[in-house]
């Protein structure tokens, strides 16, 4: 282009002036999430057997098994509690789960001002499952089966 190279940039900017901006007004508008996006975990507590394979697969030790009373059997059984501050969203727990009851969903904005709120108990993960898939996941919810 040489000396007249500046005309190219002038043309480009002028062309952009009549186009729609690509910026998304984030809190009001969102880019629709992709189905394979790895965000916050979703847990189906009704399916989960507490095998701890997810906890063993986790390279960051973000998953800790906690006990909850299962109303179906009347016994205490184990469910994963996930520390989002340690999690790096690699998806190995999802691959390890033999019952497909732990999945990584599309939620990516979960910043809080306290460390405790970043530790997600199984009930919270199950609520997110219900919001996303619409199928019952909490222990108290009525099962389809």
């Amino acid at each position, binding site marked *: 282009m040489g000396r007249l190279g*500046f005309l190219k*940039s*002038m043309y*480009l*900017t*002028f062309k*952009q*002036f009549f*186009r729609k*901006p*690509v*910026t998304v*007004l984030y809190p009001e508008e969102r880019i629709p999430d992709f189905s394979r996006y790895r965000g916050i975990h979703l847990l189906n507590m009704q399916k989960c057997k507490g095998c701890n394979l997810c906890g063993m697969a986790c390279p960051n030790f973000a998953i800790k098994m906690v006990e909850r009373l299962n109303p179906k059997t009347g016994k205490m059984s184990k469910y994963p509690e996930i520390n989002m501050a340690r999690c790096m969203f690699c998806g190995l727990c999802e691959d390890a789960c033999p019952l497909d009851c732990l999945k990584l969903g599309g939620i990516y904005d979960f910043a809080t001002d306290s460390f405790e709120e970043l530790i997600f108990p199984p009930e919270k993960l199950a609520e997110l499952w219900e919001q996303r898939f619409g199928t019952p996941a909490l222990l108290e919810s009525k099962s389809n089966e």
Partner: protein
Amino acid sequence: MTFIQLFLFPGFTFVLISALMLMYLERKIIARMHMRRGPYYVGKAGILQTLADLLKLLYKEVIVPKTASKWVLLGVPTLMLILSWAPLAVIPYDSWYYLSRFNVSLLFVFAALSVFPFLGMLLGWGSGSKYSLIGGYRGASQQIAYELPLFLSALIPAFFAGSLDLWEIAAAQSKIWFGFLHPIAMILFFISMLAELERIPFDIPEAESELVFGWKTDLSGIYFGFSIFAGYTLLFAESAFFVTLFLGGWNGPFLPGWLWFFIKTFIVLYIMFWIRAAQPRYRMDQLLSISWKKFVPIAIFNIILGVFIMLYIVPIIGGI
């Protein structure tokens, strides 16, 4: 009448609103050229954003550094703001609307403009900071280098019109605009004007990556606002000056004169914003060599060319 003009248009109220609107338009237009959105939240489509910025500057504390001279640091921005209003007084917005008119108003505009390099240098020195000092020196050398081609180009309309009165220069362009009669002078004036205003691609005095904000680095609070306001008022004033000299002032068909004047001024401003969105910054040595080695000889040659245009082309179109 004069009091109303001083207060409303082209006085205080107009200067304030136009500077705010120019800032808003600049941000919005450049944002659209960069595929962004620009100011969005304050007011409808972000129209009050610059007003909010001004209010923020009013609330902020004025900090005077230990090494700075207080009178220089606080006095110079105020003086700049006042001086930047001076060119607006003599620019004819319409054949019947101007604040003041006298036979050397072209020289008056240049007298007001030629103070700015020294104010910038004084401020850079008085701030007591190396960034401000280097910025001030750069600004002064740049503005002095470009004042010469600016003035020599501005002489050509005066020469065509046979007067140094801006009103008569604008009135003489009813048949043909001087920009079309002598386009080289118009382009030279426009580029020199960009350098004079320290705008991209000639914003070397406030090169953000090298000097923090040039000679404005140590200003804070409303005094920083003053210097920004002075810059935008000058931007409007010099665009209006350009329109008066080369684009026929208020002359134009169908629409009223003042509307033509503002349409032309807006187009000039738009081109300036456009250049800012598209062009990278020049280096200091490139900038000065462009001025002294190219623009000044061309500007002197332009005057000779202007004589030939006056002698041979103006009779063809039947006089000015």
